[in-house]
């Protein structure tokens, strides 16, 4: 018997209908996705790609038109599925006049936790996310970053098996983003499944074991991060002092691209062989080589390749109805 997938999405479709003219906006088309227990999974795509729509179906805030979504084998429509997951919405908002402690105690009760248990759990969690458990200020006085920390604390309340985080780095400063990445990594080490969406691909590259790309509501690629990246092109960069070398016609056939960067010239090449030839030619011409680097293709490069250079913004017009994706 195989263990149930943490998330199993099959043929998921969703179209929003809005306005008097009943304008149809397709947000998801035949989306298939499986996330195994214990994975840190990046759900990636540009703004408006359909990420938030898929997540809202997983937590039963909206209903799919077609297909199914299951959490550990239980339909996402079933309330029991929500006992196994925690959800952090994008830029979360909470009750203005409650303080963090009151909010967490309330949300803990809704998760079915006992009052006595919460009395110890809530201050510990607030401390864990870097907030003062004794802070009695209402949440409306909190900054965006502090609210995001409260959001993480509320997600961790019931110690669920699956964390669904929608753009978790949104609203965080660089230190906050680093903290969030470490937290996600820690959850992974604890054997939790983390499913997080992001349109900032570098974030995913830092923490994910597997990713899926979604564009215009359609899944365009998914797989292990290292497999996806190794399938991409590798590039070499040679940096030379001065800007003359970039204009030398005898070198032109040896590189892909040359660009000036201040008082330096940066040559970009496609293969190791080219790199050897250009390096030799530059040294023969008496050029001072400053550095030689191998550039791995990034997720961003991969995504641009997958959508064929098409502007991601074009996608957002297609799925605007899902709001704030």
């Amino acid at each position, binding site marked *: 018997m195989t263990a149930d997938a943490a998330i199993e999405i099959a043929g998921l479709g969703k179209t929003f209908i809005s306005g008097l003219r009943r304008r149809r906006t397709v947000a998801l088309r035949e989306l298939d996705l499986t996330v195994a227990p214990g994975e840190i999974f990046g759900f990636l795509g540009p703004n408006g790609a359909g990420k938030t729509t898929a997540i809202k179906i997983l937590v*039963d805030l909206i209903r799919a038109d077609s297909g199914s979504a299951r959490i550990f084998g239980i339909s996402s429509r079933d309330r029991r599925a929500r006992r196994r*997951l925690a959800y952090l919405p994008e830029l979360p*908002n909470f009750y203005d006049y409650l303080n963090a402690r009151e909010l967490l105690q309330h949300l803990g009760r809704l998760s079915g936790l006992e009052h006595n248990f919460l009395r110890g759990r809530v201050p510990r969690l607030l401390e864990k996310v870097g907030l003062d458990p004794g802070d009695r200020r209402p949440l409306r006085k909190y900054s965006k970053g502090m609210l995001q920390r409260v959001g993480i604390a509320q997600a961790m309340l019931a110690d669920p098996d699956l964390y669904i985080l929608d753009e978790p780095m949104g609203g965080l400063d660089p230190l906050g983003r680093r903290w969030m990445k470490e937290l996600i990594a820690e959850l992974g080490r604890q054997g939790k499944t983390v499913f997080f969406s992001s349109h900032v691909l570098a974030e995913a590259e830092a923490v994910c074991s597997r990713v899926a790309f979604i564009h215009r509501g359609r899944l365009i690629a998914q797989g292990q991060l290292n497999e996806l990246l190794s399938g991409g092109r590798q590039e070499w960069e040679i940096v030379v002092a001065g800007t003359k070398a970039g204009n030398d016609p005898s070198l032109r056939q040896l590189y892909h691209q040359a660009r000036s960067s201040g008082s330096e010239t940066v040559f970009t090449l496609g293969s190791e062989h080219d790199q050897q030839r250009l390096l030799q030619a530059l040294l023969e011409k008496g050029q001072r080589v400053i550095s030689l680097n191998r550039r791995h293709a990034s997720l961003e490069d991969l995504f641009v390749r997958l959508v064929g250079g098409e502007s991601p913004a074009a996608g957002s017009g297609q799925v605007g109805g899902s709001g704030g994706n």
Partner: protein
Amino acid sequence: MGKLLSTTSVTFRESIRNRTVLAILLLALGFAASALVLAAMAQDQRVRVITDWGLFCLSAFGVGLAIILGVNLLQKEIGRKTLYVVLSRPLARWQYVLGKFLGELGVLAVEVVLLALALVVMLACEGQPVSGLLLKAMLLYAAEIALVAAWALFFSSFSSPYLSGFFTLGLFVAGRSLEVLQHLIDKVAVPWIHALLQGLFYLLPDLAAFNLAPRVVNDIAVPAGEVAAALAYATGYGSLLVFLSCLLFSRRELA
């Protein structure tokens, strides 16, 4: 039960700490206290003026607060997305709606009790004891306010706050003026218009039964059976509206 109570308690605390709600409560108390100024001009009708004005303030501010809180009860949370972390938990949507409504009733109860106390204190200053008739009137105004809150909740479960407020206020005015509609029905001869008005008559809430101020100031007795019937009507009608609100909200998409 714990989830329902927690939702009720949080809704109550969130509303009662809201500055707008506090301002309305203070304004209501100020208006009620102005009965003393009006009474000073009324010479031998002081008790009558204080009673009439005090009950009017209790009802008007209660209905106003019920509409303001009721139409925002669900819509504010949808608009600000505060309900995402609530409904993504193992909580049934009906528990959420019912808990919110009960929390709102708690705030409205505070308004009724505050204004009732203000009225009782003012009457005591005039040497007038609290009569059973006055208590019955206050009780029925409280029931009417709860019914208006249920209407506001019902409309807000599928429409915008402005429209919900407009519909609820319209229903309140119509509900208080059913006698006019009855008069119109008696006069209309065209069968289909007659049937239409008759249907409307039965559909609209009959709120005249909750307005006992004229009888209190004229000291006309109200039988206990009449009060019980009005309370049963408010409970039945209100429960039906809350049930329908839960049903509509359960089907609602929170995109």
